[in-house]
């Protein structure tokens, strides 16, 4: 079925970006996205492009891999750009029948395409350079302060971790059950919507039963080993901010300030 399936898209190399703290990377991506939304002309978009290219070079992730991550949105970007090119009112530069392209429309098309590509590209860079597990650790730590208002940060991270661990197992299980049912004559591919939905039942029932059994076993194993939630728990990987983290945060914040300054004062 889904061979070579990966959750996330981690690209394993050693690079200054890979070795940053996940909290730094998550925060930096957020700050960069805000800065990206402040861009409004060719000069400021050029700045954001250069800044992202520097990040990509530092991450040692090949440009080809990042372009592959952008592939699912390419058609969406093209349609969006075309709509802006044709539908923005302004000075006309080219006309074909009722369709006309305006100067403002062309600018708008370039800007929107840039924004979308950078938005998805930079967030892909985050998942390309950080493993899902360390992203989860980072999320738990960032959400930590919200525990006071009742947000279950630790439980959330624990659930993410367990889910991540069980996705490959369950995928294998699904494959096995599918093959077993196909060998008994089940048909998952042909037929209309109702037939397809009906075909799901003999797949789902054994799948859920085995999933619940696994859940029971794991809960028992955790209880037996004295798992008791977040308070006072030690961990194998302790997150520590290093000087490189503070420098990166400083650089991205400086970039945001610069973009804000350019937008409103220049």
């Amino acid at each position, binding site marked *: 079925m889904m061979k070579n399936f990966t959750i996330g898209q981690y690209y394993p190399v050693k690079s200054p970006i890979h070795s940053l703290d996940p909290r730094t990377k998550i925060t930096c991506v957020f700050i960069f996205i805000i800065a990206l939304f402040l861009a409004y002309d060719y000069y400021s978009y050029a700045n954001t492009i250069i800044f992202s290219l520097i990040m990509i070079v530092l991450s040692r992730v090949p440009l080809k891999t990042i372009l592959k991550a952008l592939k699912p949105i390419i058609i969406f970007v093209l349609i969006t750009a075309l709509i802006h090119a044709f539908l923005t009112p302004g000075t006309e530069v080219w006309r074909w029948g009722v369709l006309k392209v305006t100067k403002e429309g062309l600018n708008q098309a370039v800007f929107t395409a840039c924004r979308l590509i950078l938005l998805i590209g930079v967030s892909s860079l985050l*998942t390309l350079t950080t493993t899902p597990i360390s992203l989860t650790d980072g999320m738990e730590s960032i959400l930590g302060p919200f525990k006071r208002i009742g947000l279950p940060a630790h439980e959330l991270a624990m659930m993410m971790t367990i889910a991540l661990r069980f996705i490959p197992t369950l995928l294998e299980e699904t494959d096995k059950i599918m093959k077993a049912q196909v060998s008994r004559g089940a048909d998952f591919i042909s037929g209309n919507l109702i037939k397809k939905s009906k075909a799901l039942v003999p797949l789902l029932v054994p799948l859920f039963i085995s999933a619940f059994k696994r859940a029971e076993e794991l809960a028992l194993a955790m209880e037996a080993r004295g798992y008791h939630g977040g308070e006072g728990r030690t961990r194998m990987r302790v997150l520590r901010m290093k000087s490189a983290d503070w420098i990166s945060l400083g650089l991205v914040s400086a970039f945001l300030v610069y973009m804000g300054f350019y937008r409103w004062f220049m």
Partner: protein
Amino acid sequence: MMKFEIKDTVKISIMAALSFLIMLIEFPLPFMPPFLKLDFSEIPALLIAFSMGPLGAVMVELIKNLLHLLKTTSAGIGELANFIVGAFLVVPVGLVYKWNKTKKGAYIALAVGIVSMTVFSSIFNYLVLLPLYAKVLGFPTDAVVAISGEMNSMIVDIKTLIAFGIAPFNFIKAIIISLIVAVIYKRLSPILHR
């Protein structure tokens, strides 16, 4: 505020993993805008809504979308939409069933869930989602209408997009999911309540 037993934590996690996998299998419906894809990923959350209550079901939806965020193609808006629309279905089901735990109660719960998902997700699309798409991704609502109009000529503006596109889509999706759950829940309930 939220404290789950270990058993429940693990159940929620594994159901979320399953629902993430089910979410990857999606197919378009005829006569519907192409960006609306049918998937059955609410089934595990509904099972949890019946066996554990609305809070657990919301957690399943949340974890599923956090996992999906790792491979988002819409800067998280698609995941936000899926989470909220999913919650519109599973929360009422969990609440109604909690109040009346009979077979009749389960059917009423599913009916309420179907209505809630159809009505609230239409309102949510109109007020929040379509404007958010236009603002953040620069994809104007007019263009969404134009693309949807290609598939279904009754869609001419944002109101008809919701009336003839989004609302029937969510209605059909909720009914199909509820039917599947109604069929499989009976066979699963012994193991769910062990």
